[in-house]
């Protein structure tokens, strides 16, 4: 058997690939569900019901989608220029910490319309700075950023832990390690009253549209696409690879930092070390399922959110461990990689 490059990729394949990948992932995960003594189809029905069954569950699913759009975008913009940012988890946390640090009192006097954008900038800047280090190490010393960003995730979370047990500790939390709460002035407005859904979702969708237009329309988007597809040709043409990488790192880190900032100001109100159930890592899956397309990221984030929210409900109803959600998401990453391969290659004898 050999793989042969397709001369051209049929338009339909691009849409069908993620669908095939997801179906395959669900089929494989179904075997594991069956081991738990539950009919997989019933489990999947429960997942959909739990994610969409009521007004509340719909808003819950959408609230879960929000950070995944941001971390998915963070991975998508980085991967596009072959910058392997696996540190979105850490960048998420430093963005979140910024929200608590500045949103508790420092900005309390400002009107919300000013304080919230300032906080967004701060969260984005924190995330961007955390990624800048690994990128500079790659450019200066040739250190693989995959490993450094991964390691920095652990450092970032320990740093958060240090802060929320130290200077930012909430004295009213009965000894629980959590940060001081944000001031109500910087809390994001709700999108649907009496639910957890906040306008962060709209900001996330807007971010996806902006990223998409930057990529599709601007000279920067054009040049960074060239740099990602062929670094050598881009260099020969006089484009600066290091500049592209640094700007992209800023963008990618900022998106991940925003995710954390918005999760705190929109949903939680304070920071703990279990603020993220792996949003940073799931973002990688989201980006791959979307084939790095910013608008596709929105759809892929919704899928992953459905799996996570739905699996929680399904787990309560049927007793299948909710870790099945992580299994489904992980397998769909692998099946999507295979599906993408077959959009560009075909099998030949």
């Amino acid at each position, binding site marked *: 058997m050999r793989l*042969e*490059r397709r001369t051209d990729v049929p338009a339909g394949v691009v849409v069908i690939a993620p669908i095939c990948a997801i179906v395959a992932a669900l089929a494989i995960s179904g075997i594991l569900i069956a081991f738990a003594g539950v009919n997989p189809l019933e489990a999947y029905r429960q997942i959909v019901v739990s994610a969409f069954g009521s007004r509340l569950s719909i808003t819950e699913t959408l609230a879960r989608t929000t950070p995944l759009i941001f971390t998915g975008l963070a991975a998508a913009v980085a991967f596009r220029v072959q910058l392997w940012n696996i540190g979105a988890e850490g960048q998420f946390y430093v963005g979140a910490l910024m929200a608590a640090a500045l949103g508790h009192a420092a900005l309390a006097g400002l009107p919300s319309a000013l304080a919230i954008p300032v906080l967004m900038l701060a969260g984005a800047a924190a995330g961007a700075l955390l990624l800048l280090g690994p990128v500079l190490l790659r450019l200066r010393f040739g250190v693989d950023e995959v490993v450094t960003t991964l390691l920095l995730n652990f450092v970032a979370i320990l740093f958060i832990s240090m802060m929320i047990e130290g200077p930012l500790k909430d004295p009213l939390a009965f000894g629980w390690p959590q940060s001081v709460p944000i001031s109500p002035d910087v809390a994001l407005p709700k999108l649907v009253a009496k639910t957890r859904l906040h306008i962060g979702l709209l900001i996330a969708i807007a971010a996806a549209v902006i990223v998409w237009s930057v990529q599709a329309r*601007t*000279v920067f988007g054009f*040049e960074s696409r060239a740099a990602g597809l*062929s670094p050598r040709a881009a260099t020969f*043409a*006089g*484009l*600066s690879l290091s500049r592209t990488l640094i700007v992209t790192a800023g963008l990618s880190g900022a998106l991940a930092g925003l995710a954390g900032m918005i999760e705190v100001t929109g949903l939680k109100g304070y920071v703990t070390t279990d603020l993220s159930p792996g949003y940073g890592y799931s973002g990688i899956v989201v980006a791959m399922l979307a084939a790095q397309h910013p608008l596709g990221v929105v759809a892929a984030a919704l899928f992953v959110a459905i799996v996570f929210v739905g699996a929680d409900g399904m787990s309560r109803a049927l007793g299948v461990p909710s870790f099945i959600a992580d299994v489904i998401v992980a397998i769909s990453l692998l099946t999507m990689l295979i599906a993408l391969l077959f959009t560009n290659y075909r099998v030949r004898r």
Partner: protein
Amino acid sequence: MNRNIALELKGITKTFGALRANSDISLVLHEGEVLALLGENGAGKTTLMNILFGHYVADAGSSVVFGKALPPGSPRAAIAAGVGMVHQHFTLAANMTVLENVMIGTEWLGSWRSNRDAGRDKLVAIAEKFGLIVDPAARIGDLSIGERQRVEILKALYRDARILILDEPTAVLTQIEAERLFVTLRGMAKDGLSLVFISHKLGEVMQAADRVVVLRGGRVVAERDAARTNRGELAELMVGRRVSRPVRQASKPGPVVLSAEAIDVVEDGRARLDGISFEVRAGEILGIIGVAGNGQAALGNLCAGLARPARGRMMLDGRPLEKASAKALVAAGVGRIPEDRLAEGVVGEMNVWENAVLERARERRFSHHGIVDRRAARTYAGELIERFDIRGAAPETRTRLLSGGNMQKLILGRNLAASPHLLIANQPTRGLDEGAIAAIHQELLEARKNGVGILLISEDLDEVTALADRVQAIYKGRLSAAMATNRIDAKAIGLMMAGMWEDRA
């Protein structure tokens, strides 16, 4: 002469996608014979030999070696049957020793000890027998190109090859090294080995082969005894039609456009260029001729703005080039054709229009306030396609689908359309077929007529003598003095390419 048949290929057919690389090829190789497989780039020579050696599987047809059918798709079976292959792009690991490169695959993988002493003894014995001396303990990366080729040949002989295939063996050798190689090959043939060597050079085919099989468009078009044919006939058989390359007209060169004064270039900690000096004048072509790997890549990088001189000075239009970045050169009206068009010239996955404006997307005609003006870019790409006769291309075509010649026309076009006054052309026709070569030559001569100064870096002697007004040879990072091409013959240039200019000066 009625000798035993060593190898027989029967009806070999192979397609890659829409491309028919080999169709119904049959040929015979006798014991002790040197057979040349002659054909242009893309005629299917390498594909055919890769099928024989098992790198590819043929769609149809079979190979018979010493009377036994060879199972397809298995280099191991080919080696066991006595077939050895010397690849054009050497298959050697640079960080490992000669002995390791030779011994890999020769011992049982389950063995608990590699018998290096026995391997070394065998290698040394073979090396001495055929006069292919190399140090078994040397690291491949430290060897010269010629020595690496010796290791490639030794690898095959170590496996007791009785049929040796050599793919374009002289491409990387100086004329002297090539002649030495042919003597070695002759000796092997006398010893009973059968050899196939792949080439597109008529001279060496006539010189070294007993018999010539000519391939064109994936088919065998002729078979001749070397003794009963001539260069003219072979050339016509190989190309299939009379393609005449354009002829250079006399011209009056203008002022100096680009000059280099005693430049050193260091890349990856190694001195690549050593005190080179040259001048390119408006309306003339300066040819830099040399065997691959003598510093051409560094020279190309230097002139393309990708490498900085460690010492010396570059002058463009009489002004010193302070910051010779690729970007600055493009802005200063310097056209650049890279050595490797697929890796450096274009982004294969992008469309033709995107590649057309790759270097100048920031210019005002192609973008406003940071937004790409796609319409202007597409129109521009359409103009290039029209003017430079880029076939099979529309502005929206994915660039990697273009043939090599048309891809090169696109690169040349986007440079010439910007009316440069200097053009750096690094191996502009490498790997192209005769028709495309003629078209590229025509464009280069046209540009010269329009007053463009051209620096032509090439390994092809015919190309340089046809195009260049003056020629300098590059050898081990140094440049000879310039010679007017109409006052020097090919043989003298050949000597210069081997570094023999200093003794005479």
